[in-house]
Structure formats: C-alpha cells, structure tokens
C-alpha cells in the first residue's frame, strides 16, 4: 500500500497529529514549570541553611589561627574523611573530598596543614599525612 491510502490505513494522520500535540504540550508544561522554578527554589532560600555562605569570609580567619591542638584534631578527622584516597594523595583530591564533605574552608585548612607540617610532601608531587 502506498500514498495517502497507506497513511490512512495505518492511522498515520492520528499518530502524527497526536504525537505532535503530545510532545508540544509536554515541553510547554515543562517550560512553564521551569519558569516557576526560581519561585520554588526561593521558598527554600529562607531556611536556616543559608547562613553558611555568609560564614565563609569569617571561617578563614578562624581556621587559620586555630591552635595546634585543634589543628591535630582537625587533621585526624580530615584524614579519616580522606581515608579512601589512600596515601600518598594529590592535594587536589583531598580538597575535593573536604569540599564535598562540607568542611568550612578547605583551601585554608589544607594550607595550614602544610605550614604546620601535618601534611608532608611525598614523591611525585603527592602528599601524605605526618605519622
């Protein structure tokens, strides 16, 4: 069968029109919902979760100055978090882990560790914890 006859016989017109309508309405709805997303997202904004971002400028100072005892505790926790990396590891990988785990100021923490000799350079530009 060929031509319009085939199209009609196999429901072609219905399929084409219905299909076009469905995909069009589907993406239109999605488009509408997306356009409202910032409102939904806005609802969450008011939650107490927000403060942390404001904290960020503060934390450096704090974590930068922490006394050696605290530092070692931080290092111990930190090495626990990062245990999956094995040793030695790349600084960048450590940074990623800390960031993902929600550590306040990973960059500064790591810098402090290095300055205090808690994180010691190993071969190949890798680092390991001081034992």
């Amino acid at each position, binding site marked *: *069968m*060929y*031509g*319009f006859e*085939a*199209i009609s016989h*196999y*429901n*072609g*017109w219905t*399929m*084409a*029109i*219905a*299909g*076009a309508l*469905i*995909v*069009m309405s*589907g*993406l*239109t*709805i*999605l*488009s*509408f*919902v*997306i*356009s409202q*997303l*910032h409102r*939904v*997202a806005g609802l*969450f*904004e008011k939650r107490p979760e927000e403060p942390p971002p404001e904290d960020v400028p503060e934390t450096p100072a704090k974590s930068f100055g922490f006394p050696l005892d605290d530092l070692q505790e931080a290092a111990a926790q930190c090495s626990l978090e990062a245990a999956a990396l094995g040793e030695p590891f790349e600084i960048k990988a450590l940074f*990623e882990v800390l960031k*993902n785990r929600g550590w306040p100021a990973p960059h500064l923490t790591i810098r402090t560790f290095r300055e205090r000799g808690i994180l010691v350079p190993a071969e190949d530009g890798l680092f390991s914890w001081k034992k």
Partner: protein
Amino acid sequence: MTLLLQFLSNTGYFLADYRHIVMILVGCTFIFLSIAKKYEPLLLLPIGFGIIVGNVPFFKGFGLGIYEPNSVLHYLYFGVTSGLYPSIVFLGLGAMTDFSSLLATPKLMILGAAAQMGIYFTLLSALALGFLPREAGAIAIIGGADGPTSIFLTAKLAPHLIGPVAIAAYSYMALIPIIQPPIMRLLTSKEERRIRMPETREVSRKEQLIFPVVGVILCCFLAPASIPLLGPFFFGNLMKVSGVVDRLAQTARSAIIDTATIFLGFTVGASTQADVFLTPKSVGIFFLGAIAFSIATASGVLFAKIMNLFLKQKINPLLGAAGVSAVPGSAREVHLTGLKADPTNYLLMHGMACNASGVIGSALCAGILWSFLL
C-alpha cells in the same frame, strides 16, 4: 590438499562480491570524513571502522558474524539491540549537559518541541512510500537528529533497520553544516536574523538541582516509554549538578560514556553487512532522512516566527534550527548564521539551550512513537 582449497574457498578474497567492496568504501569514506573533516569523529570513526569489519566476507554458520549467536560481535551488539548502549550514553550525556541557559530562558524549550515536527512529517512520508508502520516510526525518528535515540527506537520497533537508520542519522548529523544554513537563510529575513537575545540571568544552584527531578517526573509521566532514555539522562544531570557525587559524575562522563560510544559505534557499523544493508529500503531511508532533517530545521525556524507573533520579547528565529538536537553542531550553525547577519550577535548559549531541549524532545517522541506502534 582439500583442506587448503577449502580454506581458500572460505577466505574473504574468494567470497567477496561487489557489495562488500561498496560497503568497505563507504566505511573508508566515513573514516576519511571523521579524520580529515573532523565531522562527528567520536561516532563516524567507530562506525566507519565497524562497517569495514562487518563487511569482511566470511563463511556463515561459523560463529563469526554479528548476526550469528555466540559470536563476539553478537555479544557486543547486544548492547545495541537491547537498548543498553543508548541508555548508558544518555547517562553520560546528562552528566555533561549544562542546563543553566535553558533554565534562564524557559521559552526556548518550546523550540525543542517544534523541531520534532520533522519526525511526524517523515512518519507520514515513510508510510506513503510503503514502509510498514513500525519501520516508518523508526525512520521518522531520524528527524530527531539524535543518534542514540534513533538507535534505541529502531532496536525496539524495527531491529532489522538499525544499520541504515543509524548510518543515515549520523551521516546527516555530520552534514549539518551543509544542510541547515540554506534552510535558515531561506526562511528568515536579515532583520529576523539580527534579533538579539537578552543576556541570560544567573541560575541558582537550587533551580539546577530541582530541574532534573521535575524534568524526569513530568516527561516520564507523560510518555513512560521514554524512561530508558530520559531516566538515565536526568540521573546523570543530577549527579553532575549535585556536587556531592563528583567521582560518579566524572566516571559517567568519561569511562562509561566512552566505553558505550566505542562499542555502540563499532557494532552499529558492523551490523551493516552488505547483504542486509544494500537493499532498496536503505535508499528510501536515506532519502527520507534528508527530508526529516530539512523539515525539522524548517519547522523549528517557522515555529519561532509564529511565537514571535505573540511575544513581546522576540526570539531570533534561527534558534528554531537549534531545536534539532545534533549537539552541538546545530547550535554552532545557528551562531555562525547569526554572525553573518550581525557580527556582534552571539546566539551560542541560546542555541545550546535549544539543543538541550531538542534532546529531551526527541527522546519524548521516541517514547510516544514506541507507545503508538508497539
């Protein structure tokens, strides 16, 4: 002595006929285009080499061919026929796609739907040319301009056409820079091509996090048959934007998608064995594929013009052409065509948004066609 003769009579040299030569030349052409012209090399190169390997003539019944059970190629090809490779590729694509421009300009999403009209027009044309309904559905999806989607739907509706449909889809995707610009120029005035798009706003992380969840629910509730594509797609995207599973997202967009891409391309190529590929149907499919791409481009552009009738903030109608996924080829063509009309008009990011929408649109259409035809 008989052994040697028998061996020689089973060599490719003895068994080859002109069709194998033709297909091997096609394979070489694909490889040439992918290397010298850099047309979609990630897919054309594996497909091209696969075509060559699949068209080495061999004695059937030996367990070598891709269509013989127990052959290595058959096992690898299972990822195609089962739909696994396309799903896995969508997982990786999701982990690569940045939806922020789309989230900033939601109305562009509708263009991704408009450009799917090429699919339905091709469906009608294929039926009119005498293809059976399921074959017509598989051919129509070429108009979605999305390789894995085409392969997935064809595997479900008309597995015997996987080779020609995939080859047609990827060929035309590689030819986007040749197909799209004339159509875009034909359908738009220079004035229209000069329309500028507003700068996209900053999108909050929360919007980006909610989008894949809302997207999968809305789309898959509408067309549950698109779950195998859109489920992994939005999952990959959530992994990407969540920021808490970076190692998984990283693996999804490297080792996982690369592996699926290699075996998908290679086996799709190898499935084009001359005797199943060189048929009049393949000619019809290539003809319809060209129509599908052209109509898709045109319908995207025209729909944008229609939208402009109602919108205060006009859309540059070229963006309609980027609604055919074909990431990121069509966005680039739109951008370049826009630049020719106004060298300071940057349509790239908006084009990418339409691309992303087009991927969702064609996956939805695959689900719809599958529902209609199975």
